[in-house]
């Protein structure tokens, strides 16, 4: 499909003009990248990109609009059932509860899997702080499940360079933060015989760098500005970064893992704010003769205090950290925004507002037992259960998770980190 200056970009999914093009565009693939800067009646209400997630007047993120705007698909019931059938196990709680709710080409990955074709997983973390909160763990918990369920290898990119560039940290500091974050990642339970973790500062080079350059060669400055909002004042390091996040989507970047494999499919579990990077990657892939990476995307983990945006590492009370003690967790949950009514009588009459209630939302993320959650939903929503009881149950669940994580992290040694990050073959990665 050819797009020219002056055209209006028409989104098929929402059947309306999304924006108007006002600069040159190279005729390319059929997938239409959505441009961030265009005046667009939808874009001003909420901002979702890798560096900012917010809504205009503190309202909730509208995920339906996001799916429409980005052009990805919803994960529906039939897809989840298909996953269950193919993996012969209960789908992960995040799938069942709609946490991972959007995808691109996940069906094709499942098709390939059914045929007996292989694929690999790719996810990453930007080591911006040593303190990890539960929101950070979500993609890793889900990725671990995918690794176990589909029995596939995983590469994890630690974008220490990105944090140097955007957060102005020193190289040595981001590398160190990266290693500390790796310990938390390992604690999520990845299998070392199927997992390769790498830091950009250490790994960039060889076939990986060849892909970085090739990807960069397919994207004009104008396009990068359109997708990521770069301007003349931005340092060029920022502009050269996106290809680095794109390159791990191609199996040829990892010659020690997939020697000679030019086209192994890739599935990327990530939060939906990373979508711009991978839209760009998918756009570029066919031009390099690679298959497009598939994506499965999660919504944001709500902050304890507020209903808009996501948890932030800069406000300690907005999140539950993996280093929090049982006492801390109890205190933070007790301070969370609740949807219960102000007094007991109103509560009995009207029930709790489950849309606004943070403790209930958290339970929907972390309470494994579907029937227990249903029960709480009914009782709390109809006013028979009190906020205190919900908070108490949540505190129990979270303490268990945090405790288990802490124990697992204590078992991670520096040697283990070195082993996970060593450039080495993984002979049993598909077993």
């Amino acid at each position, binding site marked *: 499909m050819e797009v020219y200056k002056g055209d209006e970009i028409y989104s098929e999914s929402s059947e309306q003009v999304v924006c108007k093009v006002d600069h040159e565009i190279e005729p390319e693939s059929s997938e239409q990248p959505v441009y961030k800067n265009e005046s667009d009646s939808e874009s001003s209400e909420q901002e979702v990109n890798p560096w900012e997630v917010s809504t205009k007047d503190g309202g909730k993120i509208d995920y339906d609009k996001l799916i429409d705007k980005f052009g990805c698909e919803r994960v529906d019931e039939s897809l989840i059932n298909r996953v269950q059938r193919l993996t012969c196990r209960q789908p992960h709680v995040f799938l069942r509860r709609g946490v991972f709710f959007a995808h691109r080409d996940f069906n094709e990955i499942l098709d390939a899997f059914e045929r007996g074709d292989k694929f690999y997983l790719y996810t990453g973390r930007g080591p911006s702080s*040593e303190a990890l909160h539960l929101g950070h763990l979500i993609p890793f918990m889900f990725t671990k499940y995918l690794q176990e369920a589909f029995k596939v290898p995983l590469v994890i990119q630690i974008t220490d360079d990105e944090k140097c560039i955007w957060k102005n940290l020193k190289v040595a500091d981001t590398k160190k933060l990266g290693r*500390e974050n790796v310990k938390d990642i390992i604690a999520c339970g990845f299998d070392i015989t199927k997992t390769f973790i790498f830091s950009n500062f250490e790994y960039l080079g060889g076939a990986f760098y060849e892909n970085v350059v090739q990807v960069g060669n397919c994207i004009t400055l104008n396009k990068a500005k359109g997708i990521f909002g770069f301007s003349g004042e931005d340092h060029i390091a920022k502009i050269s970064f996106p290809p680095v996040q794109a390159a791990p989507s191609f199996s040829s970047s990892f010659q020690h893992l997939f020697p000679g494999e030019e086209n192994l499919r890739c599935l990327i579990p990530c939060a939906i704010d990373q979508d711009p990077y991978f839209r760009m990657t998918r756009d570029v892939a066919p031009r390099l003769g690679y298959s497009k990476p598939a994506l499965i995307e999660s919504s944001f983990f709500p902050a304890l205090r507020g209903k808009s945006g996501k948890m932030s590492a800069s406000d300690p009370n907005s999140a539950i950290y993996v280093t929090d003690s049982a006492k801390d967790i109890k205190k933070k949950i007790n301070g969370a925004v609740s949807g219960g009514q102000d007094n007991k009588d109103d509560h009995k009459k009207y029930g709790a507002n489950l849309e606004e209630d943070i403790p209930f939302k958290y339970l929907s993320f972390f309470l494994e037992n579907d029937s227990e959650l249903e029960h709480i939903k009914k009782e709390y929503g109809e006013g028979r259960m009190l906020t205190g009881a919900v908070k108490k149950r949540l505190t129990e669940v979270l303490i268990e998770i945090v405790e288990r994580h802490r124990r697992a992290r*204590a*078992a991670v040694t520096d040697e283990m980190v*070195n082993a996970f990050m060593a450039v080495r073959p993984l002979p049993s990665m598909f077993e």
Partner: protein
Amino acid sequence: MGFSKIELLDRLQELEIDYSKYEHPPVLTVEAQAKYVSSNEGALSKNLFLKDKKNRYYIVSAMVDTKVDMKVLSQRLGLGKGGIRMAPEEALGQLLQVSLGCVTPFAVINESARDVSLLLDKNFKNQTRCIFHPLSNDVSISLNTSGLDKFLQSIGRDPVYVDLEANPGVGKDQPPDLAVYVPSGSVVIPELPNKTSSTQPKNVSAEIKPALPAKPSKPVDKGKSVAATSVQSVYKNPEKFVEEILDKTSALLLSEAKGESMETLTETQRKRLTSELTHLAIMYKNTAYAEGFYAGTKYQPYRQ
């Protein structure tokens, strides 16, 4: 290989030393130990493993209430004011051949500890019985000091009892009164790779040397390293691993025994247990691989 608790207890029996034995879950602090061994059985002890700047090592074993001032001790030993500090964890394993939370006078039974000086609280002598770990922190034994003395003499040591609270002052006319107990031999511990260097032996009220150099904003640091190494050992040691599995299993079975029907009980329990145990197993596997990998990096082809 160091003496095991069983070997030690056998030795005590051979020497016809009278003691009482108490088994309990592993404890790392006196507070925890006190939960399982009541004060009727004897006086609990706190045990410090110390080292000076010239790599000489000391075990100071005292009553819990005895105040041990490290500065004073250091001076009395003739080491100056800040001459003594907690010994690093590697030394615990190398010299005393016991694990964390397990420093005990009995550790001197090991050849490796022959140069370690043992200082005992003179207040022990007033007690009917005193309580120590017999090389393992999941057992405590109580015995009279005469028994302890007999044991020490049997391995060629003179029992040394010291008034740990005394502060006689050290100066020109007053030589350090404990200097005679400074070991003649110093010990060099070979550098071990990447141990989470922890120096928090059981229940020390004295200064605690920070295990890692101060890092900016590192919430994970405080007091974590003691727990860290014992957790790591669960994944390195098959016996401890199996124990951990059995602990988790019985904990789960006990907690869920609430009158549900047997079948539903097994179903949900099985699910939870599977998830818990798989997690444990992954950590076990990762630990084994990491150790093998490390060994591989140090591998040198055998000379022909």
